[in-house]
C-alpha cells in the first residue's frame, strides 16, 4: 500500500530535477529546508528523525540535494521527506513537506478491533512494518 503523506504523494515519485525545483521554491521564500527519515509509516508519527541539521541561509538547492543523496545512501529503504520551515512571524510552521524516498515494498496497515466494556469496539490501525524492530522494518 503506497503511503500518501505531505505534498505530491498522489503523483508518481518526483525526479531529482523536480525535487530540486521544489527546494528552490522553498529557498526563494526564505524557508529553512531539512531532511528527515523514518521507518514508522503511521500517519500520526509526525516527528521523524532529522538527518543533519535544518539548513539555514541556503541560496541554492545543490546543498539540499547533496543531503538527500547522503540520506538515501544511509537509509535506502526508509521513508525520507524534505521539509521547509517558515520562521516568519504569524507562520512559524512547516510550509512544505514531501516524500523523496520510500521502501520498495510497503506492506500497509491492518485494522485491529478491541472488544471493551458493554460490547463496544475500539478500532486502531497498525502498520505491518512495525511488527519488526526499528531499523529492520523494510
Amino acid at each position, binding site marked *: 500500500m503506497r503511503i500518501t503523506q505531505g505534498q505530491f504523494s498522489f503523483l508518481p515519485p518526483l525526479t531529482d530535477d523536480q525535487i530540486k525545483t521544489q527546494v528552490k521554491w522553498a529557498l526563494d521564500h526564505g524557508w529553512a529546508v531539512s531532511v528527515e527519515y523514518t521507518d514508522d509509516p503511521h500517519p500520526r508519527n509526525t516527528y521523524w528523525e532529522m538527518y*543533519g541539521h535544518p*539548513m539555514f541561509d541556503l*541560496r*541554492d538547492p*545543490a*546543498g*539540499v540535494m*547533496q*543531503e538527500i543523496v547522503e540520506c538515501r545512501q544511509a537509509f535506502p529503504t526508509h521513508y525520507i521527506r524534505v521539509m521547509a520551515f517558515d520562521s516568519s512571524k504569524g507562520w512559524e510552521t512547516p510550509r512544505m513537506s514531501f516524500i523523496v524516498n520510500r521502501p520498495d515494498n510497503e506492506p500497509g496497515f491492518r485494522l485491529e478491533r478491541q472488544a471493551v466494556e458493554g460490547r463496544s469496539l475500539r478500532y486502531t490501525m497498525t502498520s505491518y512494518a512495525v511488527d519488526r524492530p526499528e531499523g529492520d522494518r523494510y
Partner: protein
Amino acid sequence: MSTAQPYVDENGVDTQDERRITLECDGVRHVLDKVNRELVGLAPVKARIGQIAALLMVDRARRELGLTTEPPTLHMSFTGNPGTGKTTMALRMAEILHELSYVRSSHVISVTRDDLVGQYIGHTAPKTKEVIKRAMGGVLFIDEAYYLYRPENERDYGQEAIEILLQAMESDRDDLVVIVAGYKDRMERFFQSNPGLHSRIAHHLEFPNYSADELLTVGDLLLEEQGYHFTEAGRKAFADYLERRMQQPHFSNARSVRNALDRFRLRQAMRLVEQGGSLSAEELTAIDAQEVLASTVFSKESESLPHLPSR
C-alpha cells in the same frame, strides 16, 4: 568520393561544418565596464578577469554548437596587501560569473577560519560542510585562508577543514567557486604546505599596491558615492596627505583612504556646526583643506584645532 560524406580532418573535426555563432557579450561587457569604472587601477587583475570572461563566452558558444566542452574550473586565489580591493573584487567576480551563467547565483559567502574550524573533535566537518552548502550555487570567499593551517599544533582541526574544502573543490566544482585571499607571502607559504590546494587553483591573481594617483582617484570615487566632493584646495591637501600617509606604518591602501574620508566628514560636520547659521548645499557637500590638514600626519598643523578627535 561522394559529396554527401562529411569532410572530417585527422582530428575528427568536420571541416565543412558551416554553422556560425555570434558571441553574446552585452551583459558581460556591462559588468566589466562597471568594474572598470568603479574600481581604480588593478590593471593586471582586470586583464585576467577579461580573459576569464572571454573563455566563458567562447565556452558557451562551443556548447551551443554542440562541441565538447567541459566547464573550466575557476577556483581562484587573490593575494595582496590589505585594502587593495580583494574583497570588493570577489563580490564583482561573483556578478561576472553569474552574468556568464557559470554560477547560478551571484551570492558570496565570506568566511574566515572561525566559520570553518570547530572547537572539538567532530565539530569541524559539519561546520565546514554547512558553509559549503550555503555557498553552493555561488562563491565561497575565504579571507586570510592561511589561518586554516597551523603547523605548530599538529592536532589543529584546520587541516580537517582544508581536506573537506579540497574535496568539495574537486567534486562540487559545478556548484561552487572557491576564492581564497590573503597577504602574498603568507599565502605562498600556505600553498607550499598544502600543494593539493595550490594545484586545484588555476587562477592566482595578484593585487598590486595603489599608486598615490590611484589612491587620489579612489578618494574622489568614494566621496562621490557618499555625496561629497573635495574643494580644489581640499583635493590638493589630500594629495599631500597621501604622500605622507603612505610612508607611515600600517598603511592599508584604499581602506586607509576610506577611513581618512570618514574622519574628514567628522571634521567637516564639526566645522559646520560651530559655524552655525544657514548653509548651502555646496557647504554641506564640500570637504575643504582644513579638514584634511587637521590630520596628525601634518602633526604641526593639527595643533590649531585642539578639540577635534585628530588621528
